[in-house]
């Protein structure tokens, strides 16, 4: 009897503990601990800090400059998300319609292989394309156009173009998934009932793909709002977002301020995620 009970405890506690334990111990606990330490730092408990003090929060949040930076981060992320969806949607539609294996391999490789390359490499590529004497300006400046040169780097335009490039694969992937899951019969039925291709798209395909659109928006927004390398390289220090500010304040040994900014960045990313997720659940919850 006791032996059976011991075996039961063994099965229900020790086995899961042994399987889950290592990951929890060396990955998940450090993860939680680091966020706790971040919170503690932001309220004044850090080496050389004065102890409990909400001063840094108050100063940061009452400074109009901080809000400019917060809005820059959010504005950039919203614009990048918009373009990624605008471009990514027709691309996903085109990808699911490819029927030759060769074309599929080429298209998937070209769209997804940039994910294998460092963000530094890709941002550098855009620097080469967009700089004053770079490829694009020399193309536009040549006969017969004779345009420009346009200032495309060290401002938000360059940052947005490069970020759309870097984040587009993250938008396309969930869109393909959701488009492939749609039963072909639904569109066939709509066509048989006399719906025009336009009506089929707006009444069947598009509404059914909205959950994928929301997932794509979530991923792209979260990555864009916290982007660091691309705004640094293409913005040349002139495009200031929250990530940049955190980095600079750590350099200036402003621990408290950096912690506050990192937390605000976290709140912005998680906040938008929760809003979209709630919208997703409210609209599609009962169906999926």
């Amino acid at each position, binding site marked *: 009897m006791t032996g059976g009970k011991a075996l039961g405890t063994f099965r229900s506690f020790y086995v*899961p503990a042994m*399987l*889950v334990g*290592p*990951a*929890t111990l060396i*990955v*998940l606990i*450090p*993860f939680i*601990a*680091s*966020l706790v*330490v*971040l919170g503690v*730092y932001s309220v004044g408990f850090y080496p050389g800090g004065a102890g409990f003090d909400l001063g840094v929060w108050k100063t940061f949040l009452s400074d109009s400059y901080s809000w400019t930076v917060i809005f820059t981060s959010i504005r950039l992320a919203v614009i990048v998300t918009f373009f990624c969806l605008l*471009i990514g949607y*027709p*691309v996903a539609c*085109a990808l699911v*319609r490819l029927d030759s*294996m060769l074309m*599929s391999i080429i*298209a998937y490789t*070209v*769209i997804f*292989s940039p994910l*294998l*390359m*460092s*963000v*530094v*490499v890709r941002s*550098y*590529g855009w*620097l*080469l*394309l967009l*700089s004053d004497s770079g490829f694009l300006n*020399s193309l536009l400046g040549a006969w017969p156009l004779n345009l420009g040169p346009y200032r495309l780097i060290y401002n938000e335009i360059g940052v947005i173009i490069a970020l759309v*490039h870097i984040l*587009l694969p993250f938008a396309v992937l969930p869109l393909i998934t959701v488009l492939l899951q749609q039963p072909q019969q639904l*569109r*066939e039925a*709509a*066509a048989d009932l006399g719906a025009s*291709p*336009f009506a089929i798209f707006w009444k*069947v395909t598009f509404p059914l793909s909205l959950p994928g659109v929301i997932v794509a928006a979530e991923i792209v927004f*979260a990555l864009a709002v*916290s982007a*660091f390398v691309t705004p640094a390289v293409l913005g040349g220090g002139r495009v200031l977002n929250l*990530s940049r500010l955190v*980095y600079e304040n*750590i350099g200036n040994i402003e621990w408290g301020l950096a*912690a506050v900014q*990192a*937390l605000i*960045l976290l709140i912005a990313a*998680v906040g938008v995620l929760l809003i979209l997720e709630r919208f997703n659940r409210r609209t599609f919850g009962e169906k999926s």
Partner: protein
Amino acid sequence: MQARAGDSKAAVLMLRMVLGAVLVFMAAPILIVVANSFNSSQFNVWPPAGFTLDWYHKALTMPQFQRGFVNSVIAGVLSTLVVLAVGTPLAYAIVRIKFRGKSLLQGVLLGPLVVPRIAMGFSLFVLYLASGSGLYGSMSGIVLGHALLMLPFVVSVLVANLGEVDPIVEEAARDLGAGAVEAFVRVVLPQIRPGLIVAGLLAFITSFDEVETTIFLVKPVVNTLPIEMYLYLDQYQDPTLAALSTLLIALSMLLVLVGLMFAKRGSLRFLLGGRGA
């Protein structure tokens, strides 16, 4: 193009044109980096002033890039091994076992995906310093940080793969007298090989390319290659970086080809979104 029900010809033509334009857009920065690595002009002037291989020589001989490459390989291999070692049993527990706190665990597991990389980097930096563990500026610190960033991806790939494996084979092995560990190693592991390879590649590549968290965890001796490249780009913009990037692009292509060959069609299908084309 395969017409789908309810497609109009004009719409399919337009989709084709958009796809073509986007393929050019996606390839352009990569191609320009490769082209510029042979550009003899120091200031990235286009069209190229002449052909040279000097930048390759410079990229391969600069000590910070050599050291960075070695550090990146070490960090990539170690963090991949660590994350697979802790992630595989975790994924197995999530798929096969009922236990208390499972949904909490899965929630926490999403954390590293949601937290901005910069915030993650700073909070780990602070934790390393505050804990007095000496992890800051050490290879162990980088490996831990990378394993943390990768765990959600690795577990989700392995959970998906394990979900496809029929538990009956493992039960049969147990009935025939194999111990739990033996059954796992000899029956389950071989069946999730495609998942392990995809997850491992994903982990290695992410570790190898990581900047935004890593930059807070390193001291110059353990700087990884992308950090060195970022710092170089901050100072100089000559084509040395283009040459180095071209070499890395070639390397990552090679790595994927090798991975695909090992995983056979399993991961090709994974890449194509599960279509048996």
